[in-house]
């Protein structure tokens, strides 16, 4: 037993930064949502209005969750629980896979396996760490809600619901780790299950039955297939029923025990699904920088595209509902209009514009990530193999920049297409076909500036380029997208490229700004190539 405690401490030490960041981040998100609801919907009538609309809108129910009364706590739970639970699930997933399948794949588990402790000791330690992390998370979420002034029992039940979902995914991920052959595949599969849990809950809620006064919804049976759905059934701010949470925890414990038995009976490094054999020969383009970049970026790009399609679909599908709601809520109307300043357009357009702006950020993120792959290649020693061939660094950079730019455009098109489909499914014909795709594409020049800036960072300060590039995007997002909301000074807002994108369809397309930003991006690419030529490769 002392051996296991030692392993728990060792694993906790490895996670001493990342776990607190997850836990505090999730708790702060809950606190922020609670604060926002308390100020934006201080009036009971406002809350009743939004809940009444939500209760009869399947799209709204799908995205958010179950309305459960019109108290502030209930609205906060409705707004924030599903997302918070997804985050708890992802935290648990990455925690477990990191210490199990990834360690096994990289050979670290072999060292642990050689000391005199039971075969499943390391997995036991990880399960204990996961349980402890979710316990702390539950306490922090409850504390955040309580600090925001929500009633105690509801706050504690919400914390317990989030923690129980997290604990369930600790056990699920441990099972996935037995099945998948690589850490990457296991992370993908387990994160996919978290997404599926959100999706199934959404289906169940969308087909739920609203109560007569439209303040509550009883979700359909499908949500019973989802741990997030079970957590939701605790209804913290009405009945505060712990029974569904106990079921969830018991299921997690049973699954964990099963997984421990499986682990005790299998070889180190073995997995239920074997590693698939690869191809014997490279396909077309497999002998070029561009082909390699495409091979490496493809799975990630698919992920970004799914995300963009979902966001675009939500923008389109929810647009009509939101415009109805907001039409009746003057303060929210003002808030939304501040996102797109200087216009008094149709609320529905404003809403899609704002969400497509976020899609622009998503596109930029996909591009930044494609460029930062260069840094990973360099730091992990693979760039050395590539650059010992008779190909220049400029070509290496160029191939990856071409792919990054293409990723940006593809993600934008997917988001725009998703919005178009969502809108037409909800029965609204708004503007000419292709308008929303064009609106999403209008953000491409700004995203390209971020891509080029990332390339300059990679060439100039390789060692810190990864955090700086993501920090830059976060800064650009806050300043450019929410600058007006936060009432930042105009000059500061103007620093962000997003600020100079035409907010279509509300604003007309601005060719001058788009051309200027494209020129800046091209110049940045040139500077990056020049700087990269003049520095050492650094690990």
């Amino acid at each position, binding site marked *: 037993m002392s051996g296991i405690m030692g392993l728990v401490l060792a694993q906790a030490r490895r996670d001493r930064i990342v776990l607190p960041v997850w836990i505090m981040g999730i708790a702060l998100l809950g606190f922020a949502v609670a604060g926002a609801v308390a100020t934006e919907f201080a009036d009971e009538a406002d809350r009743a209005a939004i809940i009444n609309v939500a209760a009869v809108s399947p799209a709204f129910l799908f995205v958010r969750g179950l309305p459960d009364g019109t108290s502030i706590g209930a609205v906060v739970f409705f707004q924030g629980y599903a997302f918070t639970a997804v985050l708890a699930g992802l935290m648990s997933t990455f925690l477990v896979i990191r210490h199990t399948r990834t360690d096994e*794949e990289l050979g670290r588990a072999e060292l642990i396996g050689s000391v005199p402790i039971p075969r499943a000791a390391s997995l036991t330690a990880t399960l204990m760490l996961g349980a402890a992390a979710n316990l702390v998370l539950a306490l922090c979420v409850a504390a955040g809600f309580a600090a925001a002034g929500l009633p105690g029992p509801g706050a504690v039940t919400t914390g317990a619901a989030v923690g129980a979902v997290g604990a369930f995914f600790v056990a699920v991920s441990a099972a996935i780790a037995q099945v998948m052959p*690589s850490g*990457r595949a296991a992370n993908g599969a387990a994160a996919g299950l978290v997404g599926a849990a959100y999706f199934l809950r959404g289906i169940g809620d969308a087909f739920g039955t609203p109560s007569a006064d439209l303040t509550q919804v009883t979700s359909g049976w499908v949500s019973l297939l989802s741990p997030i759905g079970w957590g939701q059934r605790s209804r913290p701010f009405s009945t505060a029923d712990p029974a569904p949470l106990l079921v969830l925890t018991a299921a997690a414990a049973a699954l964990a025990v099963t997984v421990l038995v499986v682990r005790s009976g299998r070889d180190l490094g073995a997995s239920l699904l074997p*590693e*698939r*054999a*690869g*191809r*014997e*020969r*490279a396909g077309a383009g*497999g*002998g*070029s*920088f561009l*082909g*390699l970049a495409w*091979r*490496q970026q493809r*799975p990630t790009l698919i992920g970004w595209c799914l995300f963009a399609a979902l966001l675009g679909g939500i923008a389109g599908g929810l647009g009509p509902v939101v415009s109805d709601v907001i039409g009746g809520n003057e303060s929210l109307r003002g808030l939304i209009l501040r996102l797109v300043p200087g216009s008094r357009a149709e609320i529905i357009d404003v809403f899609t514009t704002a969400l497509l702006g976020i899609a622009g950020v998503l596109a930029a993120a996909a591009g930044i990530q494609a460029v930062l792959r260069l840094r990973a290649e360099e730091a*992990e*020693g*693979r760039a*050395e*193999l*590539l*650059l*010992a*061939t*008779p*190909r*220049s*660094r400029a070509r290496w950079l160029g191939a990856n920049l071409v792919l990054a730019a293409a990723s940006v455009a593809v993600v934008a098109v997917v988001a725009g297409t998703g919005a178009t489909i969502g809108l037409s499914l909800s029965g609204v014909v708004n503007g000419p076909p292709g308008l929303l795709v064009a609106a999403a594409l209008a953000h491409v020049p700004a995203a390209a500036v971020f891509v080029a800036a990332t390339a300059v960072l990679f060439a100039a300060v390789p060692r810190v380029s990864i955090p700086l590039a993501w920090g830059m995007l976060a800064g650009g997002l806050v300043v450019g997208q929410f600058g007006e909301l936060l009432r930042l000074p105009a000059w500061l807002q103007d620093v962000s490229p997003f600020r100079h994108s035409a907010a279509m369809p509300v604003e007309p397309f601005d060719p001058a700004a788009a051309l200027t930003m494209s020129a800046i991006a091209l110049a940045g690419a040139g500077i990056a190539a020049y700087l990269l030529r003049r520095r*050492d*490769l650094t690990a």
Partner: protein
Amino acid sequence: MTSAADPVVDATRLVKTFGRTRALDGLDLRVGPGEVHGFLGPNGAGKSTTLRVLLGLIRPISGTARVFGLDPWRDPVRAHRDIAYVPGDVSLWPNLSGGEVIDLLTGLRGGSEERLRRELIDEFEFDPRRKARTYSKGNRQKVALIAAFARPARLYLLDEPSAGLDPVMDSVFRRQVQRVSADGATVLLSSHILSEVEQLCGRVTIIRSGRAVESGTLAELRHLKLTHFRIEGADAGLLAALPRVQGVVIDGDVAEFDVDAADLAPVLEAVAAAGISGLSVSPPSLESLFLSHYSDSTGQVL
């Protein structure tokens, strides 16, 4: 343009620092055309840094590096046209299969020779279908070696290439070096394994703390060293008292000592004159030279 006699690799007074560490401290290295040149030194002596400078991946602080007469930093693409490189620590793309990585690396150099590629995969008993993340160190090394040898080059830069290979695979590797050498290619082989260098290389440069401490043919280096004598017999102790004898150890009627090459004749005369009952003479091994340079750096014989 380079003439036939110009060195393929010509590095003069290379200096490279990383922070406070002086990785290269005035290194000289010259490799002539067609040579198989051993580049020997302990870990951390600067072997990999030298190869990276020769590839133009990093820039020396001072000194000049020329490969085929070209400055690899200013003109890496032309310099690399005829170079095959195997890094010391081979890191691959985890989601690509071994075969795909080989095609990628040879493709960037202009494409592999199909026959060579097939033969190498057979000889190295390599499974090209597995994903790179499942390869052991030895298998990753094979990927880099196959990619290097599957397309002919005029210069092979090999950084500790046989690390992780078993003896059978090591002999496959040595055959490949001999094959490309017979075709007239130049090979620079860094290693800390002496026997490998003794078997393959005609010339050797020994590097320690970023500086070349010895350079020459194996015969020349052997010449610098001492022949070891072991003598049994009553008068062994008397022989040990000869003036040109070094490192004497006497154990009963057995004496052991070392003699410099220049002093062999008088010592042998004295040995012949003495009444001895047993004699063994060991040729100079590169090992003794190597160890003497190694031990300087660490303060003790390894």
